[in-house]
């Protein structure tokens, strides 16, 4: 799905593929967020915001209205302007994501969670992964700027 979204932004999908992809994005909030993120990254990297914005906005508008009836901006300069190599993350199939979720669920269900027999004082074993997770998600100055210090 990631590859499809990427290709959609490049105006390189055929009509059938585009309708299907747009329909899937319209149904899934997370896919829509991913689409917007890819759009932001690509638009800013190429700094062709005005053209790209027009193309991407028309896609989002179409998702909001009626996915099947969307019209394409075939004259978009996005496809020809792309100088970036395809990042590896854009080619991961969505099936892998579902598989990962299923694997996590299976591990969670099958894992034997017992009361731990031994404990660590966090003063001796600093929970760096929790601190970093907080810094990444907490929307504050101190979290964002301190994050650099922990890496």
């Amino acid at each position, binding site marked *: 799905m990631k590859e499809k979204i990427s290709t959609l932004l490049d105006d390189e999908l055929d009509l059938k593929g585009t309708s299907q992809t747009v329909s899937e994005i319209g149904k899934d909030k997370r896919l829509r*967020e991913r689409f917007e993120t890819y759009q*932001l990254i690509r638009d*800013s990297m190429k700094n062709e*915001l005005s053209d790209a914005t027009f193309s991407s906005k028309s896609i989002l508008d179409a998702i909001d209205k009626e996915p099947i009836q969307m019209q394409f901006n075939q004259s978009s300069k996005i496809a020809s302007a792309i100088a970036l190599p395809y*990042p590896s993350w854009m080619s991961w199939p969505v099936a892998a994501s579902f598989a990962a979720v299923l694997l996590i669920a299976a591990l*969670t269900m099958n894992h034997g969670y017992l009361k*731990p027999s031994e*404990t660590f004082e966090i003063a001796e074993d600093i929970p760096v992964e929790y601190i970093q997770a*907080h810094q990444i*998600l907490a929307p504050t100055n101190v979290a964002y700027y301190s994050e650099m210090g922990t890496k």
Partner: protein
Amino acid sequence: MWLIILRWVLNNLLMQRLLFSLLLIFLNANAYALDDPWIQIEKASQAARQLSYKGIFVYQNNQEMRSIEITHLNNGKEEFARIVNLDGPSRELLSRGDNVVVFNPTKENVLIQKRQGQNLFPAILPSNIEFVKSSYSLRFGDQERIGGREAQIVYLDPRDEYRYPYKLWLDKEFGLLLKMMVLDHNQKTIEQVSFNQISLFASQDLNWFTPSVDTHKKYIMDEAPQNMVSKETYCTISNLPTGFREVSHVTRMMGRQPQLVHQWIFSDGLSSVSLFVNPIPKGQKSRVGEIQIGSAHIYARVMNGSQIMVVGEVPQATIHKISNSVQSVSAH
């Protein structure tokens, strides 16, 4: 005799003039307070989002100090911002509306991270200041010049022990936040951010809205953790500190032996705290105790075979209260 009368009249006139001058000073100093003083905070909140500005500010906490460049544009429809780290490791944040992406270039590649909406300086105040009003009282201080601009000092004093005091310098003309300090309860500075230079601009040109990264490097996308859309009742959480509310709940894989961890973010509008809850796998040691790293307090405990960890740049009392707000954890 005439001399005495003349002296009395002169003294009286001088006293009247003095009183008049004092009155003027008093009225001037309290001009902000005549209206609803919270309007100034609302104005500061809106100015950071609605104005187009470019400047360099210095960020300082008790661990480090760094210069940051910010460019912010509001074209009437959308907000665009680029925040560039000028000292130390190269790092940039680009945002368009609520869509936020961070570029971390390394020697070999560029790590791209999707973030949730950030309340970074000068946009630290929430759009809805009611959240702040319920937790802080407000008073005005002196006036100072910051980054070449005249500023009014405003103090946000916490109404309880669960948050730190703030000292804000607001641009007298536009309301934009020019400087801020977060203090602890002993008036020691925890965090300070201050513009060295700031200017407004009217251009809607977006040529600056691009990261300065090597486009030939490999790009690695670090996906955001999955937001919980279901109302899964994994934990019973109640009796949070006054003013704190849940702003997000995600699950993510974490740890040396990766495992599924629930993370909640609670905020009172200015500060944020993370609560982590995860089952402790068989054979894995749990963590207990508390520690302070920089301005962050961390508190760990175990409940019903689950690890409960709270992290936040808030007073210790807040961390304890949020940890104790976990009333029960589902059996697993």
